[in-house]
């Protein structure tokens, strides 16, 4: 393997914990405690994947700056934000900058490892043929590339959103996917229904950019959501 992961986190304890956890997966993990340190290292060599905290020391938006920097050098570089900032505006900003995912603390190390693996797998499979495609009406789910297509056009969604759509489709035969089930898809410790609502809201918007009449994600009030195109 020998993939290089850069972790930028100002708290040495958390940095150590991330490093230990990801090292167990066999990755080479480089930890940096400040933006300057990280930038110096990136000048030498770019990592294969970056995990960034947003607040570094006194610099409140240092993570965003680093993300921009990395995107400028390699737009294909997968970036995961790992932060205590759970505000909607930060989440949107992070994803807009081209990050693959946005995780809020406290994180599940197991899920982090899984996510990193998935991202590497995605890069490897990027140019491969779409073998693992699943078709449902106008919806196409590409497991290998972690891609969603509607009416043949790609829907730019995050890994979490991808998982949510998958969960909805998996529960198509039942009452729908419950909030708890959808929460598991986000792989975070505790997820309020409201967080799910926000994800659904964004997904609907993304589908509607392609098809203004999109109306396949239905609310099951007090329970969750259901995929039903009718």
């Amino acid at each position: 393997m020998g993939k290089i992961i850069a972790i930028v986190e100002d708290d040495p304890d958390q940095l150590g914990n991330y490093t230990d956890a990801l090292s167990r997966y066999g990755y080479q993990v480089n930890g940096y405690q400040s933006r300057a340190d990280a930038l110096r290292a990136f000048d030498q060599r770019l990592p294969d994947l970056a995990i960034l905290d947003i607040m570094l020391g006194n610099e409140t938006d240092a993570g965003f700056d680093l993300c921009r920097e990395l995107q400028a050098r390699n737009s294909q570089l997968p970036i995961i934000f790992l932060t205590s900032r759970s505000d909607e505006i930060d989440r949107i900003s992070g994803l807009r900058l081209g990050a693959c995912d946005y995780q809020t603390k406290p994180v599940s190390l197991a899920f982090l490892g899984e996510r990193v693996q998935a991202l590497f797998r995605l890069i490897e499979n990027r140019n491969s043929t779409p073998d693992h495609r699943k078709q449902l009406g106008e919806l196409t789910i590409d497991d290998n590339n972690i891609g969603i297509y509607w009416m043949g056009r790609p829907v730019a969604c995050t890994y979490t959103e991808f998982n949510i759509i998958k969960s909805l489709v998996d529960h198509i035969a039942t009452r729908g996917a419950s909030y708890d089930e959808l929460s598991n898809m986000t792989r975070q410790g505790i997820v309020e229904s409201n967080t799910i609502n926000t994800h659904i809201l964004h997904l609907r918007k993304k589908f509607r950019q392609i098809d203004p009449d999109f109306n396949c994600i239905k609310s099951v009030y007090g329970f969750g959501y259901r995929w039903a195109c009718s």
Partner: protein
Amino acid sequence: MIRRTAGKTRLGSKLVLFSLILLIIPWLGYQYIREMTHFLVEGQEKAQLLAAEAIATVLRERTDLFSLGDDVSASLLENTALYAYPLNGNVIIDGYFGDWGELIKKTRHYGDESVIFSRQDTLPDSVSFDLVMGIHGDYLYAAVHVIDDRIVYRHPAYRRLDNSDHLRLILVSPEGENQHLVLTTEGSGTISAYQVQDNWKYALDGRAVSGILGIWQEHSHGYDVEFRIPLALLGKDRRFMLRVADVDDVHQRQVTTEIGSLPSQWSKELNHIIIRSPDIERILSGLEHADSRLWIVDRHRRVRAEVGAIDEDDEESNTHTDRISPGLIQAALEGEAGAQRRSVNGSDIITVTHPIYAGTNVIGAVMLEKGVRELVAMQWGAFQKVAILTILAMLSIAIGFALYSMRLSWRIRTLSRETIAAIDDEGRVTADTIQAQSTVDDGLGDLSRSITDMLQRLNRYTGFLENIPRTLRHEIKNPLNVISTSLQNLAANVPAVIDNPYMESAERGITRLDRIMINLTEAASMEDSLRSDEQSRFDVDKLVREYVASCIHTQTHHQFDYQGPPQGIIISGVSYRIEQLLDKLIDNAVGLSPDGSTIVVQLRTQGAMAILSVINEGPGLPEQVLGSGFDTMWSSRSSVDDSPHLGIGLYIVQTIARHHKGYLKAENCDDGRNVRFSVYLSRDRVSHDVS
């Protein structure tokens, strides 16, 4: 919320009250005019005294002008004086008095009190006469108006002169002898004058007295006689008396009544003909003034000259100076100048007197009278001017005040409007700068700038408070993450600890802490999130119905009962926020009620509001909770369970309800056995059409 009405009116009425102080100005003006008038009257009095003194100086040493009757006693003279007014030469002896002009008004009446002799027992009310005398050239003129019910003329057959109506004259000749004259006639026309014996019966020489000319004219009540006699017939004392003898019976021809020109008790005396000195009047004529009158009085208080007139009605003062001011005249004749004010017909008259000296002896007095009508007119004019000016000033000041107060209250209103708008209903600062009045350099400008300053400080503080949850989250989540990831790493490195109960309890602690943080930030960022939500119209009945149906699966420890409206209720809002609101309400109800109990969810309409109620069994809420308004993160639950509450749930419900133009209300019902939380939501106006 904010009482705005009081301040405005109070400011206006204060200014009006304040402007009432202006009413003191006319009062001050009136006081000033009074003072001024008083001062002017005193000034006039002094000026009058000076004038009187000047006149007295002119007449000083002129004993020749005061020579008449010096030896006659004053008291006698007072009662016997008959004034002969200077005539202007127009008087024609014709028996008609029209040519006497104004003088005819100055006649004196002689009646009952002047009876000398009467044959009848009863008073001769049938006879009386009026007399006025004048002087022109060398003649003394007299106009006699006799009231007589029966006129008996002289019959030429009789030699006696007293057997018809006639006039009798007694005079003292220059030689000092008493002479008796009878003026009689045989009919209207020229009278004849005869010198008669003392008994009035026969003429002394049968010859008419030359120089006496008179005309007798009959009128409806009697007769008028106008005659003149040469002054040469009178001595230097000019003593004289006129009597009217009345004969009523043509056959008996006896004098029945005789009336004289003196009161009855003085009938033995003679009148003094007082001739006002033309010499003095000539001297004084230059001093004549409108509304002023000047008298020269001799030692016997006889008016020797008179110039000017104050008032035509003021007849009594013509001859009787003593009636005006006996004290003043007396004082002047004793050598003391004096002044006096009196009121006639409502206007003040100032009288001053000054003695006239010849050597050290007082030979007479000057009396000068002047009305203050000019002053009064001046006072009135001044008062009018002051009044008009005051009214104009007050009006302009009042208008100025009104405009000023209007402008002031307008300025206060704009400032108040902007200040109120600067903080919204939730107490959030929406604008940290007040534009109104901010550039004005006065108290209101200062206030506006102070409010701006205050708002900015409040805004900073609010911002600080709003950021507390975020800061707290950041500060807590990082160590929480350290613990969480450390535990995970520990479990991975030392698999033996995975099943350790301490490990499990540590993880539960982390979970609970995380949930608290999520709830805190959820509440804090609620408003921001709500603002970015997209509104849509949806059927809230369908939503709640579906939600309660789901609850039956998710909340297995409680029964649920939904009581919905007969038809759908369309509202404008955000459906998943209503869902979130229901989450909190149901969560709250589940927490408050015992397991196995039924939670009732009701939805109904009331006017423009849709009311969503959640009723659960449980102990009643305390009063302070019912009235709290859920603005704080209150919690009535003290027990520790898996989900932290802190009242955040109800705070979120309240916030969402407000965002839907509604509110949250809590009440105890069914005698405190049940608790009801009701959310009032604003209904869509076109709901009937849609449903």
